[in-house]
């Protein structure tokens, strides 16, 4: 009887220990997230309700004026809209190129695969500023592209693609591409290649195999890669400023200027909070679209 009681009690104690143990394991990560992300975000949220007056960076207040200004001034809505659109297009372009590259990588074997993996890693080894300087050598009138096209006889006069939306999207895509490639590659690596052979054996042409077998299997990766590129692009400002036209000022640049040049900390915080909401919205949408299957691979 006693023995039975003990044996019944033991798993119960273990369950409690297990929960405590799980929680204990979470504590370091929770502490890091709380200290370095949650607290600054809460501080920023509070700052966004302060006022900016008297030449100081902020004065204590509780006001919605900053949010009202953001939502009623066309110039900030314009900036927000441009940033959103730029992020959407860049994310779409990134996913297309990342998908093709990842698919190609997945189909390769041996040293060939290693070489292409190294190529995919290259942009991650260079700082964003260095990459920008590289494009500055590539796109202008006297840049590599213009001179090459001229020497090949494809154009009659020098051309410049600098300071165009195209240049900004190319620059942003180049930076976000490796992340997209590795997200999608991890999805591809989780697929049994024999399903392609099976589809082929059953008479499906390559395009149909792609549309009805491969694409549905990689859909979650596409959504995550898109979301990652979107989140990264929406907060950036160096590349669009350096490569894009004057009209392409992003919300990131607006935050920088409000914070440092105008020293309007409350309004900069309000802009940052809106940006965070956009990112959270994007992540929630990703979660909804991918469901649970994405966690198996990414």
């Amino acid at each position, binding site marked *: 009887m006693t023995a039975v009681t003990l044996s019944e009690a033991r798993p119960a104690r273990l369950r409690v220990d297990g929960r405590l143990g799980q929680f204990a394991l979470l504590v370091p990560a929770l502490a890091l997230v709380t200290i370095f992300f949650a607290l600054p975000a809460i501080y920023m949220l509070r700052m966004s309700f302060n006022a900016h007056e008297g030449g100081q*960076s902020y004065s204590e207040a509780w006001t919605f004026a900053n949010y009202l200004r953001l939502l009623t001034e066309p110039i900030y809505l314009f900036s927000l809209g441009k940033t959103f659109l730029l992020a959407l297009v860049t994310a779409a372009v990134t996913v297309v190129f990342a998908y093709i590259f990842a698919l190609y990588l997945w189909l390769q074997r041996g040293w060939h695969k290693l070489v292409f993996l190294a190529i995919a890693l290259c942009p991650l080894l260079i700082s964003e500023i260095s990459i920008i300087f590289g494009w*500055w050598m590539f796109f*202008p009138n*006297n*840049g590599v592209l213009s001179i090459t096209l001229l020497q090949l006889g494809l154009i009659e006069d020098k051309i410049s693609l600098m*300071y165009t939306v195209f240049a900004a999207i190319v620059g942003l895509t180049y930076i976000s591409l490796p992340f997209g490639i590795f997200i999608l590659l991890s999805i591809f690596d989780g697929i049994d290649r024999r399903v392609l052979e099976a589809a082929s054996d059953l008479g499906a042409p390559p395009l149909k195999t792609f549309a009805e077998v491969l694409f549905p299997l990689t859909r979650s990766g596409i959504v995550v890669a898109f979301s990652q590129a979107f989140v990264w692009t929406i907060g950036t400002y160096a590349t669009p400023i*350096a490569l894009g036209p*004057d009209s392409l000022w992003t919300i990131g640049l607006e935050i920088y200027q409000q914070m440092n040049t*105008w020293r309007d900390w409350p309004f900069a915080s309000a802009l940052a909070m809106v940006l965070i909401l956009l990112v959270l919205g994007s992540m929630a949408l990703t979660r909804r679209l991918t469901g649970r299957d994405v966690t198996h691979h990414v």
Partner: protein
Amino acid sequence: MTQKKTGSGTGKQSLSRRRLLATAGKGALAGAAAVGFPAIIGKAPISSAKAAFEGEQLIVVSWSGNYELVFREHVIDPFNAKYGTKAETVGGWDQMINQIVAAPADNPPYDIIVAEEFIGSTGLAENVYVKRDDSKIPNLSTVYPWFFETRPQTATAFGVPFGGGTTMLLANKRAGGVENSWKSLWDERFKGKVTMDSNAFWYTLSVPALTYGTGISDVWTWPDKTTKLIEEIEKLKIAKWYKDGAEQANIMLQEEALVAMSYSSDGYTFLQQAPDEFDLTVPTEGVAAWADWYFKIRGTHHSELADLFMNYLLEKETQDRVLANSSIFMARKDVAVPSHWKGYPASNEDYHRMFQVITMEGWAQLLPNWEAIDKRWKEAVLKTSS
């Protein structure tokens, strides 16, 4: 005898202990006076100042870009060589005051920062500067009064003037026959081939203020006069607005633009690196200028070394070296003017005549209208973009 000896002995011992302590105290004071104190007032023999500050660190913020390079090479390195210190310079711009305000008051990220009228004003508003002790900066007597006459009395109690910069007209020689006037920027030939600063737009607005307006005060006379200046800017067709020196260099070197409103430090780099390709001139209408002051930051742990450094900034050798390697103007009256600096001001009157400053009083009028001007400025940038 024994008692006497003993008493005497005890008395001697006790006396010698007191004397020893007193002598040690005086010795320490004298030592400190000999080693450290003269160094602080800037009259120290180099050897004693070196002993006092050897190995001590000092973080000085100078403007970024070419200015920072010149400052490091011709101010920081010679200072360290002279005093055995570990002073270093880091680049900075409008983020400096935010970083100081955000840091603990007794542990600022910098010991000394450079500031012109705008950052000078914001730093004063945030109370981050330490008042200057004139007795520790004897070289202050060598400075042109212009530096003190162009800012409010209350502000002159902080920091030391070092020099200043100006806007300048930069033209690619391939543009051919660019008139030495700001009006060249409005020349039909250069439509779509002009670049100007969209970030520090107050200096950009100084160009139409000096060319078509009633003077630099138009920049801060919002809305009437400032709006007129913006309307003049809107008549331009800009190849690309630049936001920093690196972007300006790229735009000019890649010939996206042929003429530019530049700044003295950036312009000097063009002259040094491509003298056959660019002309850098002071237009006949005059130029907007700013004065670079170096401020000691409250809470610094290196207050005495900071004073020594601020006095060093005004040494003749320091000022001569920097002037020989830049296009800025200096604070000292007796500098050796290099051949590349044509028409360098020779008197305090020249300073007043040549350099139009967006003064601290001007900033006091500009800042309350910042939001409205910024909004209007953005519209102008959109209108003028190619």
